[in-house]
């Protein structure tokens, strides 16, 4: 009796998955080495846990609720610049948090554009601060992701169905019931769950827009325990709670999370015969205009402030931009080294549970992973030269769940389609990667790399703990500028950061699709 066949791409993915688990667990072990037994969870921390869950749930629901009309309008309208708009609308997702908050304040702040306009026409002003501010910011970040997931869903409805609906002359209400509602039921829970997990670990956003100590998240409590009280046991305990909450939400989510589609293919509008009425057109136009304004105005604000600040930016900022670029490149390399084998492993398994490992890095507090590793490395070697590589690794771990979502489904396709041919040719191990998987997945790999680079370049990360003069990253330098009264120069640095994040994404995504074959 022959044994169960080995996957042609080998089993290094198990090692990669093991590496992720070990990297995170070891960091907790590091903390554990130094932690003394502490108190239990206090009322203030229970409040933080409640607030964290509440804002994450609201953010997820509202992001998805707003994404439904936007995705629907984008799916059924064709206009000049539609493709560019869809790409640009994705930008907030890869925007560094600190940069985004500046932009949001300029637009929605107390003296921001929206309130100035409201005042001019005699409307009451809005306050961005409080729970709704936190939620607004999270919707800003995650609406692009939700829209992309839903748009993909809409475009997966075969054109023939719409043809049939047109043939039967179904009214809009019936089109919704027969075609769109079943789709939403399929896609919405997963999209909401994914955004919920992302918002659970929110830190910087909640702080500035939260309005006060009511808006304390678990991540802030971890920071406080670590940075201010230096209570490692407490920090570790809170990290475990966060890991547990995010981890269990993630596990549930995994069964329902949809795949993250490439931007390619989304620029194709499905030919529709319904929704031709003037009212429907007008509503769609409104939704697209509002959605674009919401997502693009803060970007515009960042650009405006940044252009003024650029000339005042000290030269040292460029050097740190170089460091950040280095960290981003290393993150990309590490991510691909982990994600590709893992995706290979997961896609040859029938159950999807293994993908949960990918979510560990996102759910665990980066501050704790960094600190844990500092404690472990310190007795053996000087941790300072390792600060940038460790930052790159942590950034890679945080991008891992997205990478897996992007890579696993097409990987599964490739391995199913070409399994026999590869086996009959004896194509396995590295040659199978080299000649089959990598070229077939080039577009997805480019997309993943771009996403990772963009997320990594904007992340302040753990570098702030151990940064040497020579090892500052751009976000850190931006903070330093802000800390030295140089707000305008900091705005210039923010623009540079934004440009770098977008450029990294664009270059890799483009490279992945450049001369794309078959």
């Amino acid at each position, binding site marked *: *009796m022959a044994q169960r066949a080995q996957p042609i791409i080998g089993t290094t993915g198990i090692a990669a998955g093991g590496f992720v688990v070990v990297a995170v667990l070891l960091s907790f072990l590091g903390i554990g080495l130094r932690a003394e037994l502490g108190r239990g969870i206090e009322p203030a921390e229970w409040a933080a846990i409640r607030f964290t869950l509440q804002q994450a749930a609201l953010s997820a629901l509202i992001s998805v609720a707003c994404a439904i009309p936007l995705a629907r309008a984008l799916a059924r309208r064709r206009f000049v610049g539609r493709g560019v708009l869809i790409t640009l609308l994705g930008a907030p997702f890869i925007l560094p948090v600190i940069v985004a908050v500046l932009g949001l304040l300029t637009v929605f702040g107390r003296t921001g554009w929206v309130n100035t306009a409201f005042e001019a026409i005699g409307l009451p002003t809005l306050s961005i601060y409080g729970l709704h501010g936190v939620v607004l910011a999270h919707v800003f970040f995650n609406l692009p992701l939700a829209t992309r997931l839903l748009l993909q869903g809409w475009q997966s409805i075969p054109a023939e169905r719409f043809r049939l609906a047109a043939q039967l002359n179904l009214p809009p209400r019936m089109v919704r019931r027969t075609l769109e509602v079943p789709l939403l039921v399929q896609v919405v829970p997963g999209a909401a769950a994914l955004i919920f997990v992302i918002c659970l670990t929110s830190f910087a956003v909640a702080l500035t827009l939260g309005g006060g100590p009511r808006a304390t998240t678990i991540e802030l409590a971890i920071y406080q325990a670590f940075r201010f009280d230096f209570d490692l046991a407490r920090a570790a305990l809170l990290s475990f709670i966060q890991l547990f909450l995010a981890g269990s939400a993630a596990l549930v989510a995994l069964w329902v999370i949809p795949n993250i589609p490439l931007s390619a293919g989304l620029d194709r509008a499905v030919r529709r015969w319904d929704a031709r009425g003037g009212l429907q057109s007008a509503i769609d136009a409104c939704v697209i205009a509002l959605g674009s304004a919401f997502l693009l105005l803060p970007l515009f604000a960042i650009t405006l402030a940044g252009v003024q600040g650029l000339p005042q930016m000290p030269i040292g900022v460029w050097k740190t931009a170089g460091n950040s670029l280095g960290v981003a490149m290393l993150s990309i390399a590490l991510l691909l080294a982990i994600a590709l084998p893992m995706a290979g492993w997961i896609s040859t398994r029938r159950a999807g549970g293994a993908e949960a490992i990918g979510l560990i890095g996102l759910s665990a507090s980066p501050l704790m992973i960094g600190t844990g590793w500092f404690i472990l490395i310190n007795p053996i070697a000087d941790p300072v030269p390792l600060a940038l590589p460790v930052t790159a690794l942590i950034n890679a771990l945080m991008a891992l769940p997205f990478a897996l979502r992007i890579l696993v489904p097409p990987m599964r396709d490739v391995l199913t389609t070409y399994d026999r041919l590869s086996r009959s040719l*004896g194509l396995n191990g590295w040659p199978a990667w080299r000649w089959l998987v990598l070229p077939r997945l080039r577009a997805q790999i480019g997309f993943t790399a771009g996403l990772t680079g963009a997320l990594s370049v904007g992340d302040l990360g753990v570098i702030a703990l151990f940064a040497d003069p020579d090892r500052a990253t751009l976000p850190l330098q931006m903070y330093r500028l802000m800390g030295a009264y140089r707000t305008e120069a900091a705005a210039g640095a923010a623009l540079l950061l934004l440009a770098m994040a977008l450029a990294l994404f664009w270059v890799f995504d483009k490279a992945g699709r450049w001369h794309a074959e078959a």
Partner: protein
Amino acid sequence: MLRLEDVTISQGGFLLQADFEVQQGRKTAVIGPSGAGKSTLLAALGGFLPLGGGKLWWNDVDITDATPGKRPIAMLFQDNNLFPHLSIAKNIGLGIRPDLKLTPEDHLRVEQALKRVGLAGMADRKPGELSGGQQSRAALARVLVQDRPVVLLDEPFAALGPALRHEMLDLVHDLSEEANATLLMVTHDPQDVRRIADDVIFVEGGRAAAPQPAGALLENPPPALQAYLG
């Protein structure tokens, strides 16, 4: 000589038994009703299905548990015989070395194979740039460089029109003559059988019969085959 010794192949609830030999250099057609297990038989020979029992021999070597790439077998499937992202030359080169580290002599062999199947000058094209018939030729060129004593064809030409299919079968016929290869090919068409097969394996009712000379069998078919041929 390929020998199936008390072989049983089970897949789901389906069971197929076979116990016969195929002589070196014989061209054998595998025929039988849809769902009888023709493709299953070939998949098992190719190493894609584990045997439920019995042994598989190549001459005196037990290849029951050998992986597909390690068997003395080259195989073409119903579809996906070429990697669409690789050039024709690379697709063929994979038949020589799966890591594509080709020596100058290897390159020469690829070129000769291309020439032999009538694709000279097409080395750098991608499969998508070729017609269906040319794609089949490219796949055959790879079988040629693989240089294995046994070739299994699981209806790779099914999507081609009759004229093209006949052309391909003639090419297969000539190539296996030249290489003295043992050929097993699944087909539905008695005409195909007459065209190139020496022998016929009739698969039906959970059993793959031993090869019979094609001419005699088609002239004078047993009832089950008669029913199938109609």
